[in-house]
């Protein structure tokens, strides 16, 4: 313990988290920015490198651990969440991060993801969403929009995509947020919030795959369109957006409407409340309300956050209760069992 405390006083820098391995992502890939932001915030956590573990599955994003000077485990496709669960259950002292992609987390690993979220281990899940399979060279993914033409769907995808935020909320996640590779300041802020949330933090990071799905998120990342098509959520603040910050989201019953601030005042707008699951649900579907006629922005930031006991805390508590009830372990007693007899 003393060792740990001493280490905290040694100031680490982002450079301390770089490894000697060449980063092998395609030049221009959004993963570079995410890596950089993670390396930027890690020294701010105040914990030594050896207390941090990155676990990943398979996919472009899952190479992440090799590039980060902490403990790391590059697992198998879709299973990073399951591996991380076992690690955290036995080692609550570690800061455990899962790096995964839309295919890894929502397709082959969909089952493990939802169970991780409901159990609420204190683990941070960074899901890089590029709406495509990059490593296998360009098939549509479970978040690709309907109609997408990709290698495995030359006539357009007929698969209806997942809405990752709605999925996480549906799985009873205790922290659900969205950010993007192209907004470093926001991404850093979200990463820090993930870390400080006690429970499973699910962060969807929109990430550009410039090789197989270039420009998928242009509308939200490019200067010219960003302000019109995004709304940044801040707890306790009204939902304002638009080039001139002249629009807002107003609740009409349970239906969100885009209104002009020329007609309404900010007090009339929906006030973001991170702790309100119903509002979070509404916001998770906001962008889907775009119907050609009405233009709804895509929300970024923390949709939802609440406190619920973590799995590992509940586990520890149960162990202590059982010890209080049954007493400390006695192997001889256990091996003897209840009924024995002696042969002379």
């Amino acid at each position, binding site marked *: 313990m003393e060792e740990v405390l001493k280490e905290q006083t040694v100031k680490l820098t982002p450079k301390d988290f770089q490894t000697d391995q060449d980063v092998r992502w395609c030049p221009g890939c959004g993963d570079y920015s995410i890596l950089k932001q993670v390396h930027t915030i890690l020294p701010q956590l105040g914990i030594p490198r050896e207390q941090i573990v990155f676990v990943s599955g398979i996919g472009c994003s899952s190479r992440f651990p090799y590039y980060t000077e902490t403990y790391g485990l590059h697992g198998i496709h879709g299973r990073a969440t399951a591996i991380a669960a*076992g690690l955290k259950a036995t080692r609550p002292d570690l800061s455990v991060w899962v790096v995964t992609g839309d295919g890894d987390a929502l397709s082959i690993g969909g089952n493990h993801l939802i169970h991780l979220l409901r159990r609420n281990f204190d683990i941070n899940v960074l899901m890089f969403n590029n709406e495509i399979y990059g490593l296998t060279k360009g098939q549509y993914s479970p978040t690709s929009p309907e109609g997408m033409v990709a290698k495995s769907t030359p006539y357009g995808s007929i698969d209806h995509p997942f809405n990752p935020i709605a999925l996480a909320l549906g799985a009873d996640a205790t922290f659900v947020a969205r950010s993007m590779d192209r907004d470093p300041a926001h991404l850093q802020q979200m990463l820090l919030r993930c870390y400080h949330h006690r429970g499973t933090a699910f962060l969807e990071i929109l990430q550009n795959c410039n090789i197989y799905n270039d420009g998928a998120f242009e509308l939200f990342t490019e200067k010219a369109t960003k302000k019109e098509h995004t709304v940044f959520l801040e707890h306790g603040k009204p939902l304002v957006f638009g080039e001139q910050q002249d629009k807002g989201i107003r609740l009409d019953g349970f239906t969100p409407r885009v209104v002009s601030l020329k007609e309404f005042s900010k007090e009339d707008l929906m006030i973001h409340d991170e702790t309100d699951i119903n509002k979070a649900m509404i916001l998770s579907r906001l962008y889907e309300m775009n119907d050609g006629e009405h233009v709804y922005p895509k929300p970024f930031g923390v949709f939802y956050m609440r406190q619920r006991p973590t799995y590992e805390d509940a586990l520890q508590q149960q162990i202590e209760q059982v010890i209080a009830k049954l007493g400390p372990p006695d192997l001889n007693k256990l*091996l003897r069992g209840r009924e024995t007899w002696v042969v002379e």
Partner: protein
Amino acid sequence: MAKRTIERLQEVVIKFAGDSGDGMQLTGGQFTNTAALVGNDLGTFPDFPAEIRAPQGTLAGVSGFQINFGSKEIFTPGDQCDVLVAMNAAALKVNLNTLRKGGTIIVNTSGFDAKNLKLAGYASNPLDDGSLEGYNLIRIDITKLTREATADITDLGLKEKDRCKNMFVLGFLFWMFDRPMDYTLQALQNKFAKNPSVLEANVRALKAGYNYGDTTETFTTRYRVEKAPMAPGEYRNIMGNQALALGLVAAAQKSGLKLFLGSYPITPASDILHELARYKNFGVITFQAEDEIAGICSAIGAAFGGNIGVTTTSGPGMALKTEAIGLAVMLELPLVICNIQRGGPSTGLPTKTEQADLLQALYGRNGECPLPVLAACSPADCFDTVYEAVRIALNHMTPVIFLSDGYLANGSEPWRFPTADQLPEIKVVFAEPRTNGTPFLPYQRDERLVRPWARPGTKGLEHRIGGLEKEDITGNISYEPENHEHMVKVREAKVERIADFIPLQTTEGPEQGEALIVGWGGTYGAIKAAVQDLNEQGYRIAQTHLRYLKPFPKNLGEILHRYPKVIVPEINNGQLIKVLRDKYLVPAVGINKIQGIPFTKAELVQRIKELVN
């Protein structure tokens, strides 16, 4: 008083059979405990219906429990029964073929009414139509007598009173085999302490059954089975899955590590999860995962964290875990994978036993993917074998497959349990923290080719490992052709080198002889009984039984070549035999049975004779 004789018997097999609601498992369990406590050697095997709640009175709903107890050494639950208890017509129909000619049938006549006969598919009542001639048929209206015995317990309904029928039977058998009722009375006392009326009803039924034997003049013979000559010491009765769970806990305690079980419910492995879930005060963590894959992956995560990672399953679950086992082989992390085999393929025969996953354990993964494989040979041996599996995993940094089967898992036998300090030490060495700035090399091996185990949280050992092929020593990703070949060979050599750290193979029976019977897993008892029988008849047959299936003990080849004939009995279509022929070029012959049930001694004796003569 009628004249009573007491006949001494060396060995008796009883089968309790009834409807799943008749409490036959409990009855069998109580008879077993008493047999154990009076000093008999014994073996038991339950026979559950596949359906959880099959309709009452049907053939599908019959539940059975077989016990073989004796004043001599007992190796199996017995071939044929001497006594069959049939609580209804269906139980008789299902089990009559297991009864020896001239054996005793104890029936509950109330279970043979028109409805029961029809459900069992009897055209006429077998109790009356002469079809049971040649058996010693004891008819008792157990239902009626139980009701009479409990008549003045006013706060219980008929249904509750009828549930005590099994105690009446048990009491009768206690009388018949001259056993004390004390242990069962005590057990009832403990079980129903909070429910005095139910306790009273059970006690009365038990005593009524005993007295019925004692006072009914038609029963003139009682039997006595004396103590067996067993090695001195303190014993308890234990089932295979229970022994396995205790072995894991013991290994965790002795190694000073935390035990983590990641598991998904599956027959016949679930009892291990249930058992371990009770030992939270030993710091045991059981994690009922969302599926088989998460079961093993969470165990891998725990192992990476410096704990004993374990996953338990049966055949279909093994199939699902395959990819993750490969990951564990690549990561070179300790892990124990327990496969309680059942009949396959696919869903197969969930409640029946088989040994057909050996080749899967040895070879069933993508790529060249070697790992140690161990198999237990009896219910109590599950303890020692799984303990050894943990030791190998921790000392050699490798996943290990432990094989048991449905027969061992649910079977029981007396166990001369060890004390904690009698257990072999398990020494675990974690890599030490570094502060001198030299890089930690996760795949730098020692003379046993074992890599270091670096626990996260240890300063200076930050490292990354994964399923991609890696460069030896550094662990960096490498696609170099020569490196891959080198790594494949190193991983194989590392597992083979474990042969230097396990005992040499031993044989039982003559050093030279007509044949060697080579077995593995749950067939040990049946082979042993058969070989003993044959040698008593003047044959010269030896037996060797393999705990270590990979690597094989170093002297196995020499043993195999010492006998003119090598015979390999297996509850599969011939799996170990393939490996032995491949590795040692011996012209072994197989005896194979694939019926979801164990070998009987008699059939092994006969088949071995045919092969030797």
